[in-house]
Structure formats: C-alpha cells, structure tokens
C-alpha cells in the first residue's frame, strides 16, 4: 500500500486540495510547509502551516503559524518544541483539573454535615486567592519550562514523538483518572480532619472544632497536597520553578497570618472574621499531625502507582530519561552524512508513517546510475521519463548545483 505520495508540478489550488483530502479521509493532524506564494493556500488549509522565509519572499511566512529560515529546522520544531509543547499542555491541563476538582469536591462531602446549606468549607479569602495567588505561579512555571528530555536526546530518539501523535497524555481516560484522583483526594482531605477533630479540643482544653479552625485546617492540607502534586509533576526544576513553588507556599502562610491579624480586623471587622485562627490552631501539634497524615495519604498512592508503572511497563520516555540520567554525557551527536550532497527541497507532500520516506530522502533515484524504469505515462519529453539526473535549486550555502533547466 502506498504510504508516500510525491506530487510535483501542482498548482496552489491542487496543493490545498491534497491537504484537504488527507484531513478529510485520514482524520489526521496535517502540517504543511512551504516557502513561496504558491504554498500559501496549502499552508492555510493545513492544521499547522509552516512558512520558510528566504529566497521566495515573505508570503508564506505571513500566512503561516510558524516560520523559520530553513527547512531542516522543521525537525527541531516537531521533535523538540512540538513535543515539549504537548507535554507541557497536557501536564498543565491535568494538574489544573486536579487542583480545582479537589478544591470543589470537598464541599460535596461537607454538604452532608452542614444541612445541605451550601456553606463553604473554606474561608472566603482563601477561595479568592486560591487560583489567583497560591497555585497560579507554579503551574505557570511548569508550562513554560518543563522538559522531559533535552533537545539533543530528542533528536537522537525520534520515537519520543509518538505519544503526541497518539494523544497519550491527555485523553478521556486520563481525564477520568484525574477526576478519580481528585475524588480520592477530597475524601482524604475532608474525612481525616473530620475524624481527628471530632469531639476533641486543644491542648489547653479550649475549642478546636470550630468552623474557622476546621476551614483553616482543610485549606492548609489542600494547599500542601496540591503543591506536593506539583512537586511530583515537575520534571525540570529551574530556579524559577523553585522560587514559584516555595514562594507560593510561603505566600499562603504569610497571607493567612496577615488576614487573621488584629490590624486588619480592626479596620474591617466583618470582612476579616478569621481573627486569631492561624495563631490558635497552627500552634497545636494535633493540627500538624493531621496535616502530615492527610498529605501523605494523598501523595503516597500516586508515587507508588507511578513507580509500579515505571518498573513494569516503562514507556520510551521513561527509558530515555533513565539513560540520560545514567549516562550523564550529552547524547552522541547524530552521524553526519559526510559525502552526501546537501539538497534541501522546499516543498513536497509526505506522510508520517514508515514507508518510502527513506527511499525518497536517500535520493537513490537521483544517483548517477539510475536503473531504467518502465515509463508509467509514456511521456518521453518528461525529465523523469528520460531518466536524467534531477537537479534542484537549493537555498543552502553549500549549494553548488546549478539552477534547474
């Protein structure tokens, strides 16, 4: 079955039609790359359009989603940046759903104990600041800087690209798993403090099961669990990641103590009702034991499951990461084809699956000795039909070839 198609002498409209056909019948994500004005319709039709800026002018660049100067940069775009982008996006989405579902499901369990009156289980200020201040920056840093494998190793193992093609990181199944994890987290986050604070008091005999202490405890547990999950999810810890994550935790404690301080209470008594809650509850060893237990109970299953999957069925991603860590030397730079002539095509259509790609790129049919082939169309005046070496105009600096006649 034909897996590679080469179309030449096509009009711009036909180029766009080829892309449309692939989009419609193969249900695949299409990428079109071109450098001239005649490639514009193809670039616009494909899902991703890439323009090459150079000899042919800026038309292709102006209508494309990505543009660069040389065709070979496409490799880096796909294998390194595209892959990283997919990884970051999937991690971001999963984490965002996880933290917000966990935040919300706790209210579901609390409803059974508050007369179904929709009493929020957190402080109002916490609910306001949760997505804005306490958990915004770490996830931003994750989606800007995260990498699983660095650029050089991405080139060396192109199979790392497969998870993106097969949509393995964020699909219905992973979304469902994320929801189940949130459900479990919310159960732990509610029922562990509930059981531990039920009918108990402080060290000095005073109240600890009041609403404000309960809210503060649940908030603190939630923040720590969610940030620990971020700790497990981040694979590439730059200084910025560290600063954002630990800074958010510190900001949480700082803001909590500030919002329950005396000063703010005197200015706006009805808005800052949680006066003294931080001081009175977080100095109890009981509270910290509860927080410790709840956080570990949420995190350990995740760690255990990940480890089990890592050991029993490691993905190629995991294997390369282990190798990267073990070897500690940069990947061997891929072998340079020493005697091969550089010829960079400027636009053609090809499919991504294994097929005749090697045949095309190895230029076997352009070699000095070309076996005589039966003509398909019987057009003797056609250059291919005459089996003359095909000469292409290149835009590399090593181009020694002349313009095609």
């Amino acid at each position, binding site marked *: 079955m034909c897996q590679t198609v080469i179309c030449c002498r096509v009009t711009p409209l036909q180029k766009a039609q080829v892309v449309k056909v692939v989009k419609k019948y193969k249900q695949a994500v299409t990428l079109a790359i071109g450098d001239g004005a005649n490639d514009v319709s193809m670039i616009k039709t494909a899902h991703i359009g890439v323009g090459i800026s150079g000899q042919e002018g800026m038309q292709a660049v102006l209508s494309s989603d990505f543009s660069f100067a040389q065709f070979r940069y496409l490799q880096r775009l796909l294998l390194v940046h595209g892959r990283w982008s997919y990884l970051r996006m999937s991690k971001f989405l999963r984490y965002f759903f996880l933290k917000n579902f966990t935040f919300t499901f706790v209210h579901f369990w609390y409803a059974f104990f508050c007369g179904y009156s929709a009493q929020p289980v957190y402080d109002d200020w916490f609910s306001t600041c949760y997505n804005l201040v306490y958990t915004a920056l770490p996830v931003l840093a994750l989606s800007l800087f995260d990498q699983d494998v660095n*650029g050089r190793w991405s080139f060396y193992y192109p199979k790392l690209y497969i998870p993106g093609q097969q949509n393995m990181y964020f699909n219905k199944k992973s979304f469902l798993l994320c929801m189940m994890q949130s459900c479990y987290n919310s159960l732990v986050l509610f029922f562990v403090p509930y*059981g531990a604070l039920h*009918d*108990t008091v402080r060290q000095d005999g005073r109240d600890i099961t009041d*609403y404000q202490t309960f809210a503060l405890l649940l908030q603190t547990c939630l923040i720590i669990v969610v940030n620990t999950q971020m700790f497990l999810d981040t694979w590439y810890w730059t200084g910025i990641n560290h600063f954002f994550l630990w800074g958010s935790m510190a900001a949480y404690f700082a803001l909590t103590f500030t919002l329950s301080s005396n000063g703010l209470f005197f200015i706006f008594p009805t808005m800052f009702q949680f*006066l003294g809650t931080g001081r009175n509850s977080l100095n109890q060893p009981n509270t910290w034991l509860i927080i410790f237990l709840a956080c570990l109970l949420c995190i350990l299953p995740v760690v*255990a499951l990940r480890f089990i999957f890592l050991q029993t069925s490691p993905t190629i991603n995991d294997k390369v990461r282990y190798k990267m860590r073990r070897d500690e030397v940069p990947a061997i730079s891929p072998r340079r084809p020493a005697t091969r002539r550089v010829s960079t095509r400027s636009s053609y259509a090809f499919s991504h699956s294994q097929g005749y790609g090697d045949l095309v790129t190895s230029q076997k049919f352009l070699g000095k000795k070309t076996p005589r082939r039966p003509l398909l169309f019987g057009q003797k005046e056609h250059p291919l039909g005459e089996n003359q070496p095909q000469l292409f105009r290149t835009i590399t600096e090593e181009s020694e070839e002349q313009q095609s006649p």
Partner: protein
Amino acid sequence: MMASSYNAKEEDGHHSGSSSHGGPGAMKSKKPDNTAFKQQRLPAWQPILTAGTVLPAFFVIGLIFIPIGIGLFVTSNNIKEFEIDYTGVEVDSPCYNCAKNFSWNSTSSCLCSVNFTLDQPFESNVYMYYGLSNFYQNHRRYVKSRDDSQLNGVESNLRQPSKECEPYRTSEGLPIAPCGAIANSLFNDTLTLYYYPQNGTKLPVPLTKKGIAWWTDKHVKFRNPGGSANLSIAFQGTAKPVNWRNPVYQLDEDPENNGFINEDFIVWMRTAALPTFRKLYRIIQKKPNTTPTLSSGKYVLEITYNYPVLSFDGRKRMILSTISWMGGKNPFLGIAYITVGSICFFLGVVLLIIHHKYDTRSNSAEIPN
C-alpha cells in the same frame, strides 16, 4: 527509524547571516538570543523516581508512622472521659419532666438532677463541657447571622446592626444587642456539680468560669461598647435577643465577664464546624496537693433546664474530660497513623519485590532507535 539531522548550532549563525537580504550589516538579525533562558537550556534539577529514593522513603515513613501512631493511641487511651446525656428523652430519665413541660413563657426555671458515679479518679485539670448533637451551627444562614463590628464595640453598629442579622435584627423597634441567630440561640442551661464524700453531706465542686474562651476572642475580637463604664447605660436603647431571659449586660455580676465579653457568650459565638460538638463550660482546677481533682465516688449534676432541643431531635450532654498534649480523647489519629504506617511498610515490601523482579528485565531493555 532515525531521522537524519545535521549539527544544529554552528550552522545556525552562518546560515541566517548569509541568507539575510542586502549586506551583512543592512538588516538586524532576527535570530533569537543564544541565552540559556531563551534557548531553554537553563540549569535544572531533573529528578526521576528511582528505586533508590522510593523504596527507602516508604520504609522510613512506615517506620516513623507506627511509633507515632502507637504514642497517639496510648495517649488517647490514658485520657479519662465521662459523658452523661441529660436531654430527658426516656420516661425514666431525671430530666424527662423538664423536657416535656418546656414552654417559652415560663418564668420559673425547671431543675433536674442526674446522679452518677466516677469509677476512677481524675487527675490534673478536669474540663467540663456541654455537648449538643444534631445542632447545625454550621448552616450557611446561621453562620453569617452575626455582626462582628457590633460585637467589637463599634457604637454605630450597636444602634444599626448589620442586615445579615435579619430576622434577629430589631425587636419592638429597638436594635437587638447582640444581633443575629447565633447570639439568639445562646446555650443557657446551668450545670453545677456536687460530690458526695464518705460522710454524706454533698460538697460543691469548684468550677472556674474564666479562661474558657480563646485569648484573641476575649481580648481582641469582643469588646463592650463605651469602654468599661456602666454597661446598662452603654446598652441603653437596645433590646435583648428574643430568646434570652436577661439582657446582655446582666450575664454576670463580674464586670470583666459581663456584656459582650462574657466568656460563655464568646464560646458560643465561635460556631462549631460539625453538627455534633462540645463547648467548654467550666474548668475544675487541679488541687495543689496530690489529691486527685475529682476523686472516684458518687456525684450529682444539677441542671437548670432552660434550653429546649427536643423539637429538632437534638441531644444535650455533659462531658468531664482530662487533657493531654494532643487534646481530648480521640483515638482516630492514633489508629490512622498505625494503619497508614503498616500499609506503607507493606507497600514498600511489595514495591521491593516488584523492583527486584522487573528491574533486571528493564536494565537490558534496548531503546528502539
């Protein structure tokens, strides 16, 4: 399938320099800076889950949690607690008549007494709590029905309480002080304890009513209006809450415990998180010599039954409890720690077996190229 590629870096600069139009200096290069930040090469720590980190972590957590759990469990078991339900639901309970004949208009209070025996003496400070069940102090409309500015002594809110207090905001045209449903439902049973020593005459057990509320509540959050001057003048022009028998400036004779800063009132205003809760009522201070605070023997609890709970199927109880460094008697945390520690340890063993079985296989696994 290996993609063929060329060495990226050196040819980058060369190419874009040469492929720019015009002379070498005519157009500014659009090449992005070759800094670590922009080229995503920032130095970073790249952790991965290896057996060397995960397995010891599980074992260490297991080994830490189990002793903590045992300590917590033993501490909780050593706390002595005694509870009596005095709602008066059964016909043969002492407070049955009080509960049945409760009416809002009665001028005289109903008294009932409950006899009980303590099998073991209670050492050190003993704390006396009243507990309520099926009482939803955490209902949303209830929780917001208060005016913290008024309770902080702000004069303007004393005369014009906040709208959140509706419908307990005004009564007979006068503003209610303290307003709101929380204040209105103040627990007003009086509990006193008497001890029957060997020779028969009953002795009252001394109960302290100071020091039962949070320090920040008593000294910062709740303030009387108009300073510590005559409270009945300060509260002139306000009405008492609908369900109270006495106005707020008659809660106690001691001026330090009167008005909004009455500690029983403060304790009640700190709304509970769950429908079954206990609130500190009195403290029985420990005796200076080595006699136990509450010796074992016969006691009687005398109750002024003012608080009706049967209409919503609630229950009232009195609890006597000692305290430890972890608070009251609650074995949950101890049991939870022991369980989680054991599961962790067991999981560590399981993961060790899995690692042993599969690691030899994955070490020799080739990465397809």
